[in-house]
């Protein structure tokens, strides 16, 4: 029974933690701009994050080894260091966007000045992480993020044309002019990247070690990844549908986060509005915490420092200083007045470039029978692992040229 509760909670937290400000932005925008035509990318990206989180979680359960230890061992020191620097830059930018998002939501609710709320958000996040055990952070923000389900309810209320929805799941390139084709490709890469953000894998594996997973938890890991991320992917589908049915139909641009909540308000009234804003708050704050911790995990694992929220800060001092530093730097980034959504756009493009170097060592270790024994990849995990490594490398190569050619998605 206890085991069942653990699986259930794990699924809910995985689902609630799936969406953050980047995914919200790109899923809504993809729907608004191209209707359902990019749904297959959501499917592809959700599959990819499942495959690699499953492997990373399995390694964490079997060998108690986190992703950046693997990166250093398998990519070599120089390539590993490059991955660390890029990954943590992306973490910092993503964290900045989430902190900005939290402050924007508080501003909508209170009307207080944005910069003051940024400082309040910084203090709030540091105090929460400093004083709350890892398990409770996971649960509070994962379960709070579930309120985003209001967007799925809204999507259903809009009564979408199911034939067109189904057609969107078939990989295809619509007939468009040259500029729109480039824009379509950019949105595809950005949407895939926003679903497969690298911190998710780092955080997931480190979280498994924080939660003291054992080899017996390999099955738990698999269920949580497949069902939890599957439901999270369904939420992303719902966001695309909201974009297609509400924003496209009304000719609105879903600038965040106020306008996004309008879709929920449109069908569910005031309750919908507040539930959507509260869900976004938990989703953004949760992602801010995950990116800050992920930055500290990465650094500590690469450098061989003690790490983990189960240790008192004095027992893992450089780890504690690191996550506080990510929060502070992230707040400084948004303090400049830069729009959190444009920070998201940049961070998402660069995050896809980090993915191949992060995923390769995970695959190399997960498939190694000498290391993983009977828990090594079977043929299916291997085939999927290689498929996604190739796909993500192609996306990484295309990301920056597309970003430049489409002027950051502005067409």
């Amino acid at each position: 029974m206890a085991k069942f509760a653990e699986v259930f909670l794990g699924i809910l937290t995985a689902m609630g933690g799936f969406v953050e400000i980047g995914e919200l932005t790109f899923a809504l925008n993809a729907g608004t701009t191209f209707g359902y035509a990019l749904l297959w990318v959501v499917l592809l990206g959700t599959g990819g994050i499942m495959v690699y989180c499953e492997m990373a979680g399995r390694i964490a359960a079997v060998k108690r080894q986190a992703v950046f230890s693997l990166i250093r061992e398998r990519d070599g020191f120089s390539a590993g260091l490059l991955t660390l620097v890029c990954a943590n830059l992306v973490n910092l930018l993503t964290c900045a966007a989430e902190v900005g998002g939290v402050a924007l939501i508080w501003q909508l609710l209170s009307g207080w000045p944005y910069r003051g709320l940024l400082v309040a958000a910084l203090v709030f996040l540091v105090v929460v992480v400093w004083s709350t055990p890892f398990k409770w952070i996971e649960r509070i923000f994962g379960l709070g993020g579930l309120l985003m389900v209001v967007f799925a309810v809204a999507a259903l209320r809009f009564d979408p044309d199911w034939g067109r929805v189904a057609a969107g799941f078939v990989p295809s390139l619509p007939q468009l002019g040259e500029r729109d084709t480039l824009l379509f490709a950019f949105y595809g890469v950005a949407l895939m990247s926003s679903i497969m953000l690298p911190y998710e894998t780092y955080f997931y594996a480190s979280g498994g070690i924080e939660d003291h997973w054992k080899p017996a938890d390999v099955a738990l890991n698999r269920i949580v990844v497949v069902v939890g991320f599957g439901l999270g992917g369904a939420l992303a589908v719902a966001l695309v549908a909201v974009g297609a049915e509400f924003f496209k139909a009304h000719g609105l641009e879903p600038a965040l986060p106020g306008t996004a909540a309008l879709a929920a308000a449109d069908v569910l009234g005031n309750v919908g509005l507040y539930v959507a804003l509260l869900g976004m708050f938990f989703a953004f704050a949760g992602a801010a915490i995950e990116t800050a911790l992920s930055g500290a995990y990465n650094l500590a694992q690469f450098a061989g420092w003690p790490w983990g929220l189960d240790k008192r800060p004095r027992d893992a001092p450089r780890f504690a200083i690191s996550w506080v530093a990510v929060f502070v730097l992230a707040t400084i980034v948004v303090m400049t007045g830069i729009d959190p959504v444009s920070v998201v756009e940049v961070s998402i493009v660069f995050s896809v470039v980090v993915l191949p170097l992060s995923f390769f060592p995970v695959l190399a270790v997960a498939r190694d029978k000498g290391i993983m024994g009977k828990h090594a990849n079977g043929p299916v995990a291997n085939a999927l692992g290689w498929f996604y490594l190739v796909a993500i490398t192609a996306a990484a190569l295309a990301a920056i040229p597309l970003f430049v050619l489409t002027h950051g998605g502005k067409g």
Partner: protein
Amino acid sequence: MKPTIELLRDVLDHDIVDASGVRCGIVDDIEFDHAPGKAPTIAAVVVGPGAWGPRLPALLAVVARWLFGRSVVRVPWDDVAELGQSLKLKRRAGEIGLGRIERRAARWLQRIPGS
């Protein structure tokens, strides 16, 4: 345990854990003893910026030396108790000189409530 040890794969860049189970660094380099006419043997594993710095491309190595210095800590091979996913030591980090910065940071952090 595998029958043979591959130094580059099983030792280099692996975690070092001291006798009380505290992570205290990563094997940044491996040092050999070699006398003329004798087979080389492992003398020590080396930890610190002076050990990983030179592994970077030349220009970055200069920057790393400038930023982090070139201090190293040599852990004699005789102090290694066990090879596995991580290197387990027979002694505590402090006795070998590892984890100095960590302890300094800890003293500093201890002033904050809840640490």
